[in-house]
């Protein structure tokens, strides 16, 4: 079935079966919980940042459907070792893609590109966004100057610790 094949690509199911970010991290600077009250999906995200301002540790415990787990796993895969600026840029790109934009040309977004099929299933877009909205809060908690980037979302709640 065309639509389903587009949604449940093999790479997504691989991330769902064995998600990245499972290993515990030391010296977490931030711990936040993301929650989607509409469907009950939730995840815990811990993040540590080194002295150069790079994300050197990301621990994610997702509890939800394949789309929310795979999206969280890809987030951990892509952002570990990246600068905060890179994390912010990727977060913004991913949000815009989920809202209908195409991936920017000339860049490789790796496994994340497989999530584009979610766009055809409007009720599942929140599933893919949960980890990224949680990341937004985590970054804002780490650096209050980033708080102005936090977008209010009626459907996703994030609790900080």
């Amino acid at each position: 079935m065309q639509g389903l094949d587009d949604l449940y690509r093999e790479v997504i199911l691989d991330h769902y079966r064995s998600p990245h970010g499972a290993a515990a991290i030391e010296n977490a600077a931030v711990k936040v919980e993301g929650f989607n009250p509409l469907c009950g999906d939730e995840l815990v995200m811990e993040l540590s940042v080194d002295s150069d301002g790079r994300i050197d540790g990301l621990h994610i415990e997702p509890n939800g459907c394949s789309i929310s787990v795979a999206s969280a796993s890809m987030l951990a895969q892509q952002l570990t070792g990246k600068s905060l600026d890179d994390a912010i840029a990727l977060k913004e790109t991913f949000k815009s893609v989920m809202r209908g934009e195409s991936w920017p040309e000339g860049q490789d977004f790796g496994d994340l590109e497989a999530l584009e099929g979610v766009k055809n299933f409007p009720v599942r877009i929140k599933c893919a966004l949960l980890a990224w909205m949680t990341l937004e809060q985590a970054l804002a908690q780490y650096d209050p100057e980033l708080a102005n980037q936090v977008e209010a979302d009626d459907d996703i709640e994030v609790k900080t610790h």
Partner: protein
Amino acid sequence: MTDTVVAATPPLDVARVRQDFPILQRTVRDKPLVYLDNSATTQRPESVIEAMANFYRTSNANVHRGVHLLSEEATDAYEGARNKVAAFLNADSPQSVIFTRNTTESVNLVAHAWARRHMREGDEILLTVMEHHSNLVPWQLLAQERGVKLKFLDIDDSGHLQLDNLSEVLNEHTRLVSLAHVSNTLGTANAIPTIACAAHSVGAKVFVDGAQGVPHGPVDVQALDCDFYAFSPHKALGPLGIGVLWGRRDVLEEMDPFLGGGEMIRDVTLERSTWAAVPHKFEAGTPSVADAVGLGASIDYLENLGMSAIRQHEVKINEYLLPRLRELPWLTIYGPEDPHDRCGLASFNDNQIHAHDLGTILDQHGVAVRAGHHCAKPLMRRLGVMATTRASFYVYNDLDDVDHLIDALIEARKVFGLAT
């Protein structure tokens, strides 16, 4: 819902019933619609749609206030619907039937107009862990406001309420027992008369959330021995936007008003007002007359099929559905095992595929189910799950629909590359 089914009740002619529902002709994603989300809302027969359209075409006017013919006809249609509901529930009188917006509003009406008058700090309300949020949150608000204590009956592993310690949980502080007639998630039909008898013996009132009771079999509020009974007609072929609250006449008479405004007054001065008689005292503002007319038509339709025949039909569905689900070893099925102990629904989980993924895949096969917490999050926690998939059946569903569901559940395993 009682199981005293007359053996001679003729079975539903589902093929004929299906012809009465225009929406069943449509396709979903190029597949025939297999509608198994009836516990969320059912579909409407042509007769209900037509009755409502006809009201707007020929008799539309406001009720209880005009002296012109149209207002007279509208009032007769509105009050005629009340009479039908009263007879349908075997209520003592039509005056004990109140029209609301839905079951939720009916619960809130009792929480405001009865409980706030009668309950104070230290009083107790007995609920159950299987309640829909609509029969939890209004009581939580009251508990916070008044210092009222909430207690809960638990379920056993088969999804039945544990009633062994009922006489210990109930005491002289218990003012109210409020519970579902039938669980919207497990399908369990609760033993209302037994619980009502125990509640009354300590002087407590009994509120029954009949949202999943009324659709699935005969309901007799006097035999149930409750004090309040509420339901949502849209879950039983009626219109969206109208609800029903039945209350014992003597209890209703001594209640405060709920909402204030037009229709519910006897006299108004600038400083104060007196109230209209029951039930109008509880129906402030212009009511949803066309919805009441549609409700009347839905009751006619249900009674023509026969509520006992509907109950029998759902047992027949369960007798086929439950064994077929059990053939799939990767499923966990919740609720009573005996097909007679539940209404026509099943909640289940695939041990590898999340309920939302399952819901999406089933939808691609034209099978509409509910995936999620079913507005019963405490029950989800009690079952130790985040969500379940629920397939709920009604008068137009047949054994073929069970087959479509099973086929789609097997296809879902293939999409996820799992063994079947």
